[in-house]
């Protein structure tokens, strides 16, 4: 998390800042995802997850965050990827979506970006994936997929 930096994707001069939004990017299974900072409460790296019985495998359990109990979702398993052992880089991003707090386990957190919303394009339907609705390709050729937070909590 130390390498978390702010890096502005170049925007046209004079364009109103209304369409600029901040996104936190993280990596899960070698794919870079972005999540609007409006949802992000905090990032924690030390945790004790209490496992819950009889829930889908992607629900890792609940954690105690200063007296609040927060359910933890492993984003890898949620997207049907193979599980991976947690390392030092693994961390939990606590999101608050429509008053519901959840934590997502990600491989690593990279940076916070200012992204022009006008440049975000939808994902081609034939490649439609669960939980992601849109994407952006950056100058250096890398691609960021945006996490659809509301879909994450809906069932």
């Amino acid at each position, binding site marked *: 998390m130390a390498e978390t930096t702010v890096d502005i994707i170049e925007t046209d001069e004079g364009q109103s800042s209304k369409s600029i939004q901040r996104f936190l990017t993280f990596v899960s299974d070698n794919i870079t995802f972005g999540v609007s900072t409006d949802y992000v409460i905090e990032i924690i790296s030390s945790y004790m997850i209490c496992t819950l019985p*009889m829930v889908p495998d992607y629900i890792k359990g*609940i954690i105690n965050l200063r007296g609040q109990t927060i359910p933890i979702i492993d984003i890898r398993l949620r997207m049907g990827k193979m599980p991976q052992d947690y390392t030092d880089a693994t961390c939990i991003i606590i999101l608050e979506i429509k008053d519901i*707090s959840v934590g997502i386990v990600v491989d690593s957190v990279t940076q916070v970006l200012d992204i022009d919303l006008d440049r975000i394009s939808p994902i081609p339907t034939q490649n439609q994936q669960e939980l992601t609705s849109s994407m952006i390709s950056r100058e250096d050729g890398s691609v960021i997929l945006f996490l659809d937070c509301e879909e994450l909590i809906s069932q």
Partner: protein
Amino acid sequence: MDASMESLLETYLFETNSLLDGLDELLINAEKIGDFSEDDVNEIFRSMHTIKGSSAMLEFNGLMEIAHHIEDLFFYIRENGIDSLDQTHKSELFNLMFKSTDKLRSEIEKVENNEPLETNIDSFVGEINGLLKKISGESSDADDTTNSSSAETSADGTKSAAIPVSAGDVPYFIHIYFEDGCGMENLRAFMIVNALQERELNFTYYPDDIDSNPDSAEKIIEDGFYIGFHTEDELGKGCTVVSNAQNIRSYETVQNQEASAPEESEPTEKAASVEKNTASPAASAPAKGKSDAAPAKKKEVAPHGAVKQDLISVNLSKLDALMALVGEIVITESMVTSSPDLQGLNLDNFNKSARQLRKLTDDLQDIAMSLRMVSVSGVFQKMNRIVRDMKQNLNRDVRLTIIGENTEVDKTIVDGIGDPLMHIVRNAIDHGIEENVEDRIAAGKDPQGEVVLSATHTGSEVIISVSDDGRGMDTDAILAKAARNGILTKPESDYSQKEILMLLMTPGFSTNTEVTEYSGRGVGLDVVKKNVEAIGGVVTITSELGKGSCTTLKIPLTLAIADGMEISVGKSIFTVPISNIRQSFKATEEDIVLDPAGHEMIRCMDAFYPIVRAHELYNIPDACTKIDDGILMWVDASDKSYCLFVDKLIGEHQVVVKPLPPYLQQFHIKDSGISGCTILGDGNISIILDIAHVYEAARGIF
């Protein structure tokens, strides 16, 4: 709606609801005696007056109109004495009053839910007026006509006399005209007077009978409303109050030159004497009315002031937040004092302070808990109303006896028992009490049926029971009905009395073949059971044919804090509520008996109980699998009794129960036997098991 209006509305709702609750209670008690006492009449009059005033202020016209007409009705009754009504009128009056409070309540509910209010209340108002006409028509004799005519003359007399009097006395005036057609001018004036009184200003006003004489409204429309002040300073303060009032078309300040000169003491004396004069020529009736009103108003004010000092109403969410915080403090306290960093150190001073801290946090917790405790009387009083209505509609003579209504329980529990109790009380009257009085007399019982509603404390539980002295339950009939409905799970002859009564609480069971307005839709007792279980309680039914039945609810005092036993299974830690544990014991492989399907059972106290292995149920790795290594815990919850196999007992703790995060509700986590979680001293989470559901979950996987 801005914030101040919002809080005004909140106060209005709170106040009106408490007034209506009070009225209901009063009506029930009055009806029991079959008569209104003078105090009752005054009380109803005052309540309606307050509701009228505050509804008018918030411009809920329908509410205001209803209250206004009831007030008129009771004004008449107060003037003429309740004894002028005969019995049929009284019972009509009771019915009308119950209807009116219901009507008001339903309108208030609409206000609460932000729904549009009913605008067409004419028929209802007509009903009230009809009764008023009926009672006034019959008792109208010479006396009445003189009354009204003398009242008129007195009004006229005051008008002509009071203006010069008040004008001569006081140097400064505010002269107010209300908006055309705003209605209830006398009340609006009265609100201003109230506001001025709150400022503790010294003033006089004309017309001075605005609170008791509805005709004064017209006078105010014609001549305006005068408020007199003795000093300029007070005039200024008065002006600010008036300028903040609503629906005022115009107001002006008037200075009275003649009056500013004379001494203070004399004019007041003069005013008093003149006022007496104006009152004395009037017939006795209005004067009596006025003098009645005056002490009545004082009475109302005095307790009000006291209540304001002793009680405050607090938003429940704030209390919840406080409870959560206190819970955190309790946990943090034990986290600090049992910190592993302190182990092996000999810290006398620290230990001393830690003990002190523990004592304080315990006290804090007790106080915080007691804040949420409310007496069950509110819920119990509502039952009075239900019994009363059913008595009328089913034509059964029943009395409700209430015992221990001051028993206190957690607020959420009080809210949770309302509906179940209502069901049970309805059942008791509809199914329990004999339909014909002859049947009761033949059985040697009091012709009047009795339903006893009682609440008592026992340790950490409160026991609420509803018992009737009716015909009792016919177990054979229940069994036959259950067989017909196909809800039996074993041969009829195998059912014990207790089990048969339990059948009553199975979904889709109702012993009454006829559906009445009150019960018999087959959604009764199973819903009761579900609701009570939702707040952690247990329902049991006992009955003796011919002698009556008794439904008992055993409910924990609070949901927020529970005594729990920490147990470990593999690496997981669970908490089992102490109230569910009967016994914990070691067993060996030889003690286990297998049933034909391969389910494990063990013998405790001459009966066999199934064994539920927690590690199998929850699929926990690294747990003890041999019976010899772990420990068996004999638990029971409502009608289920079984042994839970776990690794180890860790110890007993008081735990703060936290609900599971809302996100997890969609996975039906409650059905897997988890009722909540708690945070342990070391910051880890322990899952609280719901013993009844654990068994059901276990049965699912067998």
